[in-house]
Structure formats: C-alpha cells, structure tokens
C-alpha cells in the first residue's frame, strides 16, 4: 500500500471547490467566475462558496488555461474554443464507436 500512489479519476464526482479548481488549473478565481458565466463550467450550488465543480472541470480548466495563453484569447474566445473542443471530442467518440461496429477493420 505504501508503494502505491493514489490516483483519482477526473470524472463526474462533484467535490471540487472554487479555490481548488483555481489552484489546479492556473486560472484565477475571477477567470473561473467569468467562464461559469459563459457556460464553460456548470457548478452546483448557489453562492460562490457553495459552488461544487465536477473533477472533470479540472481537465477542462487546464485546457482553457492553456488555450488562453497559447492563443492569447480573451474569456469569450476561450469559452467558445472549449465548447468547440468538447464537441469535437464527442464526435471523435462517436466515430470511434462506429468504427467498432465496422467489420474487417
């Protein structure tokens, strides 16, 4: 047990608070609030202190942070790019599934 490193799966569990998300993604709290307004993140909870993000938001947030600096984007640009990338991921998963059904591939 001591030799093991506990790895957590970045998935749907809703247990990430605002500060932890900021730390893990390199985004500032203000930037995250902005991205929530643009619909990139959809935390549960009313007030900011109650916000809980899914751990998948860490992956999304890190991506948003990278894209924002790689392409020197503003918040609306970042939100749009993340949305499009998610759509591409969905499509790729669908293509992968269809390929699984193809015979003799």
């Amino acid at each position: 047990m001591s030799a093991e490193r506990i790895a957590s799966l970045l998935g749907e569990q809703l247990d990430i608070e605002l500060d932890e998300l900021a730390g893990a993604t390199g985004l500032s709290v203000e930037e995250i609030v902005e991205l929530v307004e643009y619909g990139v993140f959809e935390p549960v909870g009313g007030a900011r202190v109650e916000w809980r993000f899914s751990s998948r938001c860490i992956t999304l947030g890190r991506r948003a942070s990278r894209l924002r600096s790689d392409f020197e984007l503003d918040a609306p640009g970042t939100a749009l790019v993340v949305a499009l990338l998610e759509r591409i991921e969905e499509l790729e998963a669908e293509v992968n599934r269809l390929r699984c059904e193809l015979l003799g591939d």
Partner: protein
Amino acid sequence: MKYKDYYEILGVARDAPEADIKKAYRKLARKYHPDVSKEKGAEEKFKEVAEAYEVLKDPEKRAAYDQMGFYQPGQDFRPPPDWGERFGSAGVHAFEDVGDIDLFDLLSGLGLGRGATGGRRGGTEFHMPGQDYEVTMHAGIEDLNRGAEVEIPLSATEMAPDGRLRRSTRNIRVRIPKGATAGQRLRVPGKGGAGMGGGPAGDLYINIQLRPHDLFKVSGHDLYLEVPVTPWEAALGTTVEVPTLEGKVSLKVPPGSRAGQKLRVRGKGLPRPKAAEPGDLYAVLQIVTPSVLSERERELYRQLAEASSFNPRAHFE
C-alpha cells in the same frame, strides 16, 4: 546542454523586432497546436515553437539567450564564464556541470534572476509551488479491467538544495482506479515537481492511452468483438463460444442473423467507477463464406439457390 536556435524555429532574423516575433508565433501556433492540428509531430513542433516564443518575447530572457552565444542546433555547449553572474539568480551559480540540463528550463526561471537586484535566496522570499507534470500512460485493456499497477517514468529538470540544476529521472507506481477507460485522465496530487522554499509540490496528471488489443475494441466502457459465423450458422441460428476479459461465454446467434448485427452480452465490458454497472460486450456478427468449396458443397449451394425464392435486391426494381 544542447543548443536550440529559437530564431530559426520561429523563422525570424536574430534582430527581429518584437512584433515580427509575435506574428511568427501566432502563425506557427495556429499551424501546429495539438488541439487544432492533426499533423504528425505537431505536438513536438508546437512545444518547440512555444518555447522559442516564451524566450524571445521577453526582453530579459532574450538578452540572456543572445548572450549565450550562437551554435548549431543540437550542439553541446555551455554558457560563457561570466554568464552565470550576469543572468543567473543568486544560489544558481554552478554552470560548469550543465550536463543534460534543458536549455529552456535554464532560461525559463530556474536559472534566471528574479528581480534585477538579484537578492539572496532565503526562506520565504523564494517560495514557489512546484510545476504540474503531465504524462501519458500506455495501458492494455486487461490493466483497465483489473485496476493494475503501472510504472511510469518521469523525467524533469529540478533544482537541488545546493542550487545546482540537474536532470532527474524517477519511476512512479500508480494504481489505475477501477472505472478508468481510454482517453480519461488521472490526477495524483503532490507527485509533480517539488516546490521551492517550502512551496507545495505540483500535481501529476496522467493521460490514459489504450494499447490496441488483438480481439477487442473499446468504446467508452463497452467492448466490441467481431464474431465470424458461416452462412448456414447465420441462417439456421446457433450457439457459439466467445471470449471475454474473464473467460468464455456462450452466445446465442438467432436464426436469420444479418452481417453487422450486434448481439449484446450484458456486463462483460469494462468496469465503471464506484458501484455502477460495468459496460457491455457487443458481438458484431460477420458472415464469412468459405473461399474454397468442395464439389459436394458447391452442389448443395446450387440446390439451395434453386430451392430459394429469396430476393435481397427487390428494392432495386
């Protein structure tokens, strides 16, 4: 230390103004960014381009880089004798032993002075959280099914307590949590780069990439298996034994089955996280006709052709 020619990478002259450098970066970023480009080698190319821009866009770093001298790309070199005094931060002075330190790591802050005063490093003045590391782990389907432990090599440039930079390689063992599948990410808190001056260590992020399997294809938590059957098996129906990740199961092929038909074997896919039901195994039927027929087989086929009134191309009329 190997030289990298950042001007050549961006395709600009050594005395190019900042505006030109920015323009060159934007064009190359658009071309090679891995989120946008599917070109082979795009990710490495983008990393090069981003590094070059990071150094050349900052007047201080650019000056430090220019003062290192001009060499062939890939050539081993070390900075001139007084470089460390002029550009290194206090505490990072031992440049005789640069070995296989990465040039970018040296320039990007591990070696550079923080603040023109070059103040002494001490206690909380130099407090910085460690870098996050991202690696890709290659796993087999069986590893995901069992939640196997995998060893991942990590290689990074770090600052030793005595101020020397060094390249360190370590192996880290990670248990794949149950429910992980291809394309997902894992996070191991605190296993990234060491923090400095008491700052917290960074995190380790692991991307799971699946190795191709002889038999199974993976879609989410479901597995797909191509199951060949003969024309008579498809027409008459039969029961076949198919492999799963945990032994064989019997699969009923209904009479009148078509090529491409999917038969679901519940719960024989990959496990899902927590208590959720595992994914399913889909058998995809392929009807194979023998390429070589005996005379008797050929005769039987002819009789079947005569006896049958089935027209699969009725809709063409």
